[in-house]
């Protein structure tokens, strides 16, 4: 349970880190919060020859509100985002999601961007980014590119990030004031990786039907998954129990056939996906702000 030998470097500038990533691409890993990566080293599931510690790159330590999204730099700790009054007021869904990650001791060190780069299919933030159609910013010495969440997560711990690139920022789109939102998950023990979880955002129409729906799941496949069939059922529908029941039934199919392991069978995960769908939909719809119609009726 000790990490293998590696060469270590802790630069102060992004450019230095990008240079090292480019030079040693394929045999080098970025160390940020280390709350998922150090266990992999301790268990010898990872063994890069080089480690570039980005904890001293102060320019990556930021939270900013941008037009359209909340921007989070690669060194912002989960706990810092969770405690931020700005984020609590402007992106409560992000705070609620982060509260489900591990424990306080883990969130003190773990970074938001690191969790996304690690891309564990049972992790909370990749699912939220997928639900919100968020983006990430990747940099290399050759330049930078913006990658949509839908094109970023490719499978178990796998992303489209190139070996010479570093994830420097995550962008969580704002949830409109009218929309209702919810994040829930089921874990056997508090703080464990969840078996299944769901994030939902529902926007009401003037006639109080569901104008648009966005729902994403964790723990249901090799990567976070959007519930497209669920969204199709909800869009344009009255949010009554019948609609919710149809949506819950459709959510069962989001669970991939190979999601059976020592923790839960596929059938159990499907039951969880259906039940969590019912619960997040009721909770999100309850949070919506009803639209006022033209004649003043609510």
């Amino acid at each position, binding site marked *: 349970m000790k990490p293998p030998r590696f*060469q270590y470097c802790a630069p102060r500038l992004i450019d230095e880190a990008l240079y090292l990533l480019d030079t040693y691409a394929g045999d080098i890993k970025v160390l940020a919060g280390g709350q998922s990566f*150090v266990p992999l080293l301790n268990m010898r599931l990872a063994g890069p020859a080089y480690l570039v*510690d980005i904890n001293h790159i102060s320019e990556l330590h930021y939270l900013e509100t941008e037009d359209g999204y909340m921007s989070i730099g690669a060194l912002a700790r989960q706990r810092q985002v969770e405690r931020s009054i700005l984020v609590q007021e402007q992106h409560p869904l992000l705070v609620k999601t982060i509260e489900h990650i591990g424990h*306080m001791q*883990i969130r003190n060190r773990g970074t938001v961007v690191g969790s996304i780069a690690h891309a564990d299919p049972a992790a909370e933030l990749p699912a939220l980014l997928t639900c919100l159609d968020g983006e990430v910013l990747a940099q290399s010495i050759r330049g930078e590119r913006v990658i949509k969440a839908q094109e970023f997560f490719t499978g178990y711990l796998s992303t489209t990030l190139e070996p010479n690139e570093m994830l420097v920022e995550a962008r969580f789109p704002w949830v409109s004031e009218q929309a209702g939102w919810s994040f829930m998950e089921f874990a056997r023990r508090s703080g464990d990786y969840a078996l299944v979880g769901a994030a939902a955002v529902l926007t009401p129409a003037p006639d109080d039907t569901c104008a648009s729906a966005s729902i994403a799941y964790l723990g249901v496949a090799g990567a976070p998954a959007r519930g497209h069939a669920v969204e199709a059922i909800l869009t344009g529908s009255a949010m009554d129990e019948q609609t919710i029941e149809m949506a819950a039934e459709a959510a069962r199919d989001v669970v991939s056939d190979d999601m059976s392991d020592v923790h839960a069978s596929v059938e159990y995960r499907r039951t969880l996906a259906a039940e969590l769908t019912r619960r997040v939909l009721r909770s999100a719809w309850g949070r919506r702000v009803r639209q006022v119609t033209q004649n003043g009726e609510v």
Partner: protein
Amino acid sequence: MRERNDDVSQFTEECEIAVTVNGRRYEQSVPVRLLLSDFLRHDLGLTGTHVGCEHGVCGCCTILFNGEAARSCLMFAVQADGMAITTIEGMAGGQSDLHPIQQAFMEKHGLQCGFCTPGIIMSVHALLHEHPDPSEEEIRHELSGNLCRCTGYQNIVEAVKLAAELMSAQQMEVE
């Protein structure tokens, strides 16, 4: 505290660090792969920080890293360069004094075998710093990052409640 060692702008397997632990400054050369938990225990002899699972689940190795609770098994000693750490050995004022949290755990019998206790004390310290008067729900929630296989947590929760009372009484005396 001094600035971090500039040698680490080059790749290295061994690094000079200067770290303040429980108010005392240590300067030492460490292999970069040395876990902070092992540095505290083996190099500094501070064996009160326990090592249970070594992958961040059990919470036995919890320390305060620049004042915030963190797992010392998920950090490298080299990352503590220039930082301030508090371990269980730094909690009591002197040889015979106990910290109010330790006093409360003794009075309420908040431990049995004691293996998880140092980590729990450090987590509770962080909890009470943020929530001086926590509800039982908050206590249980914050304790979820520390596993105890003996007590069933009942007396630990009682101890945390008493610790909160002792610490706020102490605070009022100061004021």
